[in-house]
């Protein structure tokens, strides 16, 4: 059984200006351990697709099964808990809680999951080391560079050992060196922790690093390799 199974997913945004079919009948599956990039021009539906997979938004049609569980069947409140327990998120920006240190941010999901302080801090520290920020553990986000903040976000997404990590343009705000570093880290963790990564990008340097690429155009998969 595939880790994630999409069948004929359709998402239509309705507005006065007219309806926009952001995701237009996508079927795809993702296996455990993947390192997949969803690419395509701006407005092709990458974010919409990732939001649907992550249970942040409900598609109008089609089914999304995660390990056989149809997430459309979950109530809103169960969906929040499902995300907490199963999915790691890295957003383009504003990932971190400004009042918490890097370590506290990294441990935050574990805390929501009810992991003991000792255990979660050890795990968070481990991840901060993996992203090369052990020495900044006690700095707050505003004392970190944009690239460092994204690395903390990756550390947080992975700390709870989620079933998979969704990252929507994680490098969009980074310069090329930070982009390289972040991708190195993600690829590394993909190998070491066997974490499944699905990320979107339109940055060719990022696309090169992916082991699988889904190309979207107008809400449809036009190429998969």
């Amino acid at each position, binding site marked *: 059984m595939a880790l994630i199974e999409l069948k004929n997913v359709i998402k239509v945004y309705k507005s006065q200006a007219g309806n926009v079919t952001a995701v237009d009948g996508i079927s795809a599956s993702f296996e455990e351990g993947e390192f997949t990039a969803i690419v395509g021009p701006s407005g092709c539906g990458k974010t919409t697709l990732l939001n649907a997979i992550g249970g942040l938004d409900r598609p109008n049609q089609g089914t999304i099964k995660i390990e056989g569980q149809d997430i459309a069947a979950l109530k809103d409140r169960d969906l929040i808990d499902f995300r907490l327990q199963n999915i790691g*998120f890295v957003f383009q920006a504003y990932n971190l809680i400004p009042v918490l240190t890097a370590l506290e941010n990294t441990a935050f999901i574990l805390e929501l999951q009810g992991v003991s302080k000792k255990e979660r801090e050890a795990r968070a520290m481990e991840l901060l080391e993996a992203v090369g920020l052990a020495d900044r553990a006690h700095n707050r986000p505003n004392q970190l560079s944009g690239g460092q903040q994204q690395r903390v976000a990756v550390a947080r997404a992975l700390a709870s050992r989620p079933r998979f990590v969704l990252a929507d343009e994680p490098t969009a705000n980074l310069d090329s060196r930070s982009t390289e570093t972040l991708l190195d880290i993600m690829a590394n963790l993909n190998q070491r922790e066997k974490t499944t990564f699905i990320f979107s990008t339109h940055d060719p340097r990022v696309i090169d690093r992916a082991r699988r690429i889904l190309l979207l155009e107008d809400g449809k998969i036009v190429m998969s390799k």
Partner: protein
Amino acid sequence: MSTVSMAWRNIWRSPWRSAVVIGAMALGVWAGIFMMGWATGLNDSRTVSMLDDNVGHGRLLSGSFDESQEISAPLPALPLFLETLSTDTTVTAFAPRIVIQAMAQSGSGAAPVMIYGIYPNAEQSVFSSARKIPEGRFLEDLFADEVVIGQELAKRLEVGVDDRLVLTFQDVEGDPHTALFYVVGLYDGASNMLEETLLYAPALNMAQQTGLLDSSAMASLSGSPPAFPVAHEVCFRVQDPYAMKPTLERLSIQDGLRLEQVEQRSTIHSLETLAFISTPIVIKDWRSISPELAYADNVMAQSLLLFMTIILLAMAFGILNTMLMAILERTRELGMLMAIGMNRRRIFSLIVLETILLSLAGLPIGLLLGHGTLVLTSQTGITFESVEQGLAEFGMDATIYPVTVPEFYLPIAALVFVLAFLSALYPARKALKLNPIESMRVL
């Protein structure tokens, strides 16, 4: 990283804004507490001056006198009650007295009055109006045809020291009785109204004229008389008028015991033949002697709390507004928190906690400042010279001594807590209505 400490840190994301809110809360609580202490002090001083002046702290009287002011119903077994009062350590002074309704007449007018037939030293030990004699002197002789009247009555009847006053009253048989008295002094009472109606005359003179003591009883006084042969009521003072319940309880228990003894002993004491042994004895504290004073206490406490509630309600709106602003500023962050898996309950508690912490932070400062101000001013007092005259009309001093009001601190804290919770609800609702992906799209 507990929710509490996260909430606390969130408060300090806008240090100035939060400081202003906390400062406003502290100021509001301070002002409220000070006002409460001031008003309570004002009320207490009025109460105490009324108690000192003419109410006393407690009173013993026969039930029938209590009901009808019947002159022929003196307190039975007086010596036994006096003995009880003098052995009770919390009772600091007592004054038996005869009470008679009368009409006072001078060359220029007449006025209804209440005659207190008193034993001068005892009366002075309990009541300050018997001590404050700005003109003339107080009564001395227990049989003399002398009266001490209030300054206001003196004005009204246009009499002064050494002038004559005619008093008309009923005797125990109900027959009218008229007698001539000399004014020997004017007393300065706490209230003008009382100065106009209360008048002091010697107890035994009144007892004789009204027939409360008949001639044989009077004759027996020439030997070695009991200090206080007859009285309608005994007024007494205790150490703390705000804590006299134990004293009253002790007196009522003894009352039951005494009554039996009285019946056995009533033949022994010739003076007690007058006693209406069967009538119940009534013991009153100042709250029942003067219900309006107790009522004023309650009304005062309630209005103060109401006033405080209004102050805090205004604060609550400020806090609600601040929290709404905070939520608005953090839309993106709240969306992110929901996206990564923070559930509604946690979001709700985070916001409620923030609001409560923000509200409660100023409370101890305000309480401390308020308490400190009250401690200071309770020593020095606050004088309002311009209104001295007006206050005197109501039996009040121009210098007000605020008192500390620790009994209000807990209710105030509870009030702040409840209002904070209530003002958190709306912002929290706003936050819960946020949609994670839409919130994160906000620029």
